[in-house]
């Protein structure tokens, strides 16, 4: 076990974790941030996507100890002051949520894309969310919802 400091959603947390603990597990179990979903655990599905230093990563493929010193953003840190992020609002408007399991990862991939490119093309949107699987196969409304944010 080792003591680490994690910066998650602009808050510092001091934690004692096992060296082999995944960031995914520490977010969910130690910090109670269960918006980050456990899916395939091998980096295929993107349900556990978080933003680390401005880049999307699969939190199932990052050790908590590796995330020390980085800024982590989870889905819980996307809405600000009780107001939904434009991407979240757009997902609601376009019915881009079916079972909801892929939604946190999808939203974070979209947020990260839009922060780099405010008006992405459809192909860029599809490339940005290629690492997020939706088993309800509701991709069309998701792409439309992201595109609509860029067009506003």
């Amino acid at each position, binding site marked *: 076990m080792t003591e680490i400091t994690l910066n998650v959603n602009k808050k510092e947390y001091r934690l004692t974790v096992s*060296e082999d603990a995944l960031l995914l597990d520490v977010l969910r179990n130690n910090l109670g941030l269960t918006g980050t979903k456990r899916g395939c655990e091998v980096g295929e599905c993107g349900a556990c996507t978080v933003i680390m230093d401005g880049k999307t990563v699969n939190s199932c*493929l990052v050790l908590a100890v*590796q995330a020390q010193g980085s800024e982590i953003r989870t889905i819980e840190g996307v809405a600000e002051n009780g107001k939904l992020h434009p991407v979240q609002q757009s997902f609601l408007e376009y019915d881009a949520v079916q079972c909801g399991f892929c939604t946190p990862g999808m939203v974070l991939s979209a947020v990260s894309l839009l922060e780099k490119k405010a008006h992405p093309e459809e192909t860029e949107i599809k490339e940005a969310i*290629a*690492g997020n699987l939706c088993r309800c196969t509701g991709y069309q409304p998701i792409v439309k919802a992201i595109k609509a944010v860029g067009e506003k």
Partner: protein
Amino acid sequence: MHYYRAKNLKDILNLFESEGDRVHLIAGGTDVLVEARQKPLPQDAFLLDISQTADLRHINEQGQTIHIGASVTHQELAESALIRQSAPLLAQACRQIGSLQIRNRGTLGGNICNASPCADTVPPLLALNANVHIAGLQGKRTVPVAEFFDSPYHPLLNNGEVVSAVSFAKLEPTTRTAFYKLGRRKALAISRINMAVVFKMTEEGFLEDVRLAPGSVFPAWHRVSEAETFLENKKAQLSVFEEAGKLVADKMIAISGRRWSTPYKEPVVAALVKRTLAIAAGVYKGGKL
């Protein structure tokens, strides 16, 4: 288990010295952590994180040579203006790896040291005549990428050694290159077969200095000298590329024999060679060839 984040190459070598065989390297973790699920790391393992090691994070040019640190990520290579300009096929290969989440973590050094037969960066590096730079307790050494692998999943790396960088001569602006990846789907796909080509084309359209490197075709990585020799000084046209494709498929059968996958792989390898050459020559218009 212990965890340590190496700040520089000296840190890595010091740990090799003090911890010996207990040291397990981790960079992006996109292979190491997947494998650790099947076979957990030993309790006394010393996990040495080289993902943020400053000496392994550079992309630069020194004279006519491009140097890439081992811990540079696939996405950084895909986005690098220098790589896109001077080795476009490597940037293309990196851009098609996994997903953005994987590319943001996975590293060039990790891709070649994992030594999977379908590693996407290896065919481009073979076609670039790249060198692998290795640092270790016994000093530094450099080997051509073609001589870096023993067999699938077994790089020729000794205990107490780490790949520090990869380098290759900058391609001339007139050099043609292409990388083609065949996967079961567009994203998050493991390559079934991939192909890298580099050649020069004279103003009259004749091929020179042809380098052809397939992936997932042979049990060990190598370029296909039979096809390269055949293509030398030939006119860049589809009939020639088709012939080269057959030579590569023949070579595959000569090495591996006829196997259950041959009825699929033989025509597909031939077609991919033809297609990749055609893309590089600028005569591929899409669709079937």
